[in-house]
């Protein structure tokens, strides 16, 4: 059974390049990167990061204070942008709080708070008193917090499939709605900087000492970032639509993509098939484009062989950094902005393009009619998800 198109009734994203859609769009147009040198970790680590410093001076409001941690702060900042809270309130009243499902993605959720507990252990091996809040020290901290913040009471799940997490929330929500298990859904994801990912990716020799340069032959690895993004899905409505999605596994390696990108190809083809579209119908593809050696080589070859010259493609990680479990929703929002604005971002920090790149991958920003957009998320553990959005159909 193919996917039923769903309406994107509201959407928003916040990251180092901009908080909310308008600021993000301005940064993309002005080619202003959100990346800066790492001052986040006390232990030295020579890399660039996409840090949302605003949350550091914005504690959670009183009724939500129990959930205090960096990840939930960024979630709350993200929820307050672009009229999203109001859109959810309207949906909650229309369908009932138990019929609006919540499906969010993250890779590390609030592990930053757990790391802090370990750095500040008391002499008897306990976390300091203010960190002794069990529901914060687990993966679903994100889902539990957002459910309470939005006043929802229905299905609430946190998806954790590394870098594909907050892309896979779209198909999961679509299935729930198709089967009548929910009438609407809030999807999205939040991931924040923490020692685990900074020193973990460093241990895998995947982080760059300079701002990341996706698809550059001289690329030196990824720049980590943080982001929050959300979308409200309804069955019918005006505005952009989720037309298709594709999910697959690489079945190859925990931290390295399939050498021929077989899983990624399957996901792209599944998304096109479900939407009833061909590659020439896609005007813009937001690539996973992490600036890791392997990902970019494999992804560049896939784009060069699958898409016509008329399709533009780019990685926006030079602006935002790699937001890991929040990358799916962040880049879905950038793709939706492309659809809405007829504006297609290029690729930032990259000086020239790798020999594997076809004419589709662009460095410069572009303007023009945008009918359909695709967003790629290929994760650790070989989990792939591709989303396809388009304008409302007659």
């Amino acid at each position, binding site marked *: 059974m193919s996917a039923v198109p769903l309406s994107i009734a509201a959407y928003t994203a916040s990251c180092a390049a901009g908080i909310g859609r308008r600021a993000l769009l301005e940064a993309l147009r002005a080619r202003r990167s959100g990346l800066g040198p790492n001052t986040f970790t006390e232990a030295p680590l020579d890399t660039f990061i996409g840090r949302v410093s605003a949350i550091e001076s914005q504690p959670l409001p009183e009724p939500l204070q129990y959930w205090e941690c960096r990840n939930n702060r960024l979630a709350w900042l993200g929820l307050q942008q672009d009229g999203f809270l109001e859109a959810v309130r309207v949906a909650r009243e229309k369908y009932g709080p138990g019929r609006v499902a919540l499906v969010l993605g993250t890779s590390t959720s609030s592990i930053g708070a757990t790391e802090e507990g370990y750095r500040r252990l008391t002499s008897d091996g306990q976390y300091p008193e203010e960190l002794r809040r069990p529901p914060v020290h687990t993966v679903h901290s994100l889902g539990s917090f957002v459910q309470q913040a939005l006043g929802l009471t229905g299905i609430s799940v946190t998806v954790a499939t590394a870098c594909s997490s907050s892309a896979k929330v779209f198909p999961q929500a679509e299935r729930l709605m198709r089967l009548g298990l929910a009438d609407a859904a809030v999807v999205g994801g939040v991931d924040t900087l923490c020692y685990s990912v900074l*020193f973990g990716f460093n241990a895998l020799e995947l982080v760059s000492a300079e701002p990341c340069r996706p698809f550059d032959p001289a690329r030196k690895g990824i720049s980590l970032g943080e982001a929050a993004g959300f979308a409200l899905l309804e069955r019918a409505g005006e505005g952009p639509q989720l037309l298709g999605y594709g999910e697959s596994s690489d079945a190859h390696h925990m931290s390295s993509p399939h050498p021929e990108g*077989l899983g990624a190809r399957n996901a792209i083809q599944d998304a096109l098939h479900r939407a009833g579209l061909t590659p020439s119908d896609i005007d813009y593809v937001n690539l996973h484009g992490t600036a890791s050696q392997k990902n970019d080589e494999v992804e560049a070859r896939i784009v060069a062989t699958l898409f016509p010259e008329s399709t533009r493609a780019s990685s926006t990680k030079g602006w935002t950094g790699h937001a890991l479990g929040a990358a799916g929703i962040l880049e879905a929002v950038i793709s939706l902005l492309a659809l809405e604005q007829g504006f297609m971002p290029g690729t930032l920090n990259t000086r020239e393009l790798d020999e594997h790149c076809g004419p589709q991958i662009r460095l410069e920003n572009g303007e023009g009619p945008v009918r359909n957009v695709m967003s790629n998320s290929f994760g650790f553990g070989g989990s792939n998800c591709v989303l396809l959005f388009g304008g409302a159909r007659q």
Partner: protein
Amino acid sequence: MSATQALYIEGIGFWASSLPGWEAARAILRGEAAPPATPQTRPAPALLPPAERRRAPDTVAVSLEVATRACEMAKRDPKQMSSVFASTHGDLAISDNLCDTLAKTPSLTSPTKFHNSVHNAAAGYWTIATGCMKPYTSLSAYTFTFGEGLLEAASQALSEGDPVLYVAFDIEARGPVGTMQPSRGVFAGALVLCAEPGERSMAKLAFDLSDSDHAQPSQARAANAALVEGNAIANGLPLFEALADGVERLVVQPLAPHLNLRMQVTPVVTASTVAQSRIQRA
């Protein structure tokens, strides 16, 4: 709150410290056999080569074991099945180790420990070990993880029409993380779920969503509940108890404080289940 929909269980895998393997668990849960005198630490999944079997994190070892057994019972090729992996906390032992290193000497973080720490490590290893390129997901819903994971697996089976493998697991906590999440022992269960009845159907699950005014979450019998007590995903036991008993029963699995997954579990008698029960009697 939702229309009743049905799916069919074709295979079961199960492993807990005091219920090691489905055959043993079935007899113990029915009260026909005693649990092992000392709880076992973990199974040795045949799917992995011996060296990897020893190195595999506990979460990977138990989930691969139950996933393999469920597929064997269903006589389904793992390559052909999407999968849903559900775990409240992922690998608590690796989280402890990683957070300890990050607090003391972050530059010595192990790349292997880091990639084994991700919540989808077990699912990733499963697809790599079986060569499965179908999608998987990995999710948590804190105390509601078992039910939410099962609902996602059911939703995939019904919306796509293909069989789906469901794997739920949690392991014992170690170190300071255990002061917040005191999970005890190992609990891992797997089910092969199909939208249509077939030759291998063992039980029908007719389910709907219901608010909690209409049903309270099911509890396993006290003696059985004691065998998995303290494990973070132990509230999945009532469904396996119903499957072990092999009688029609309503199992109510909580999804949220005021929302339940209500499942009418009905044994399916087919030529193959009759043959299986003859073998078991013999």
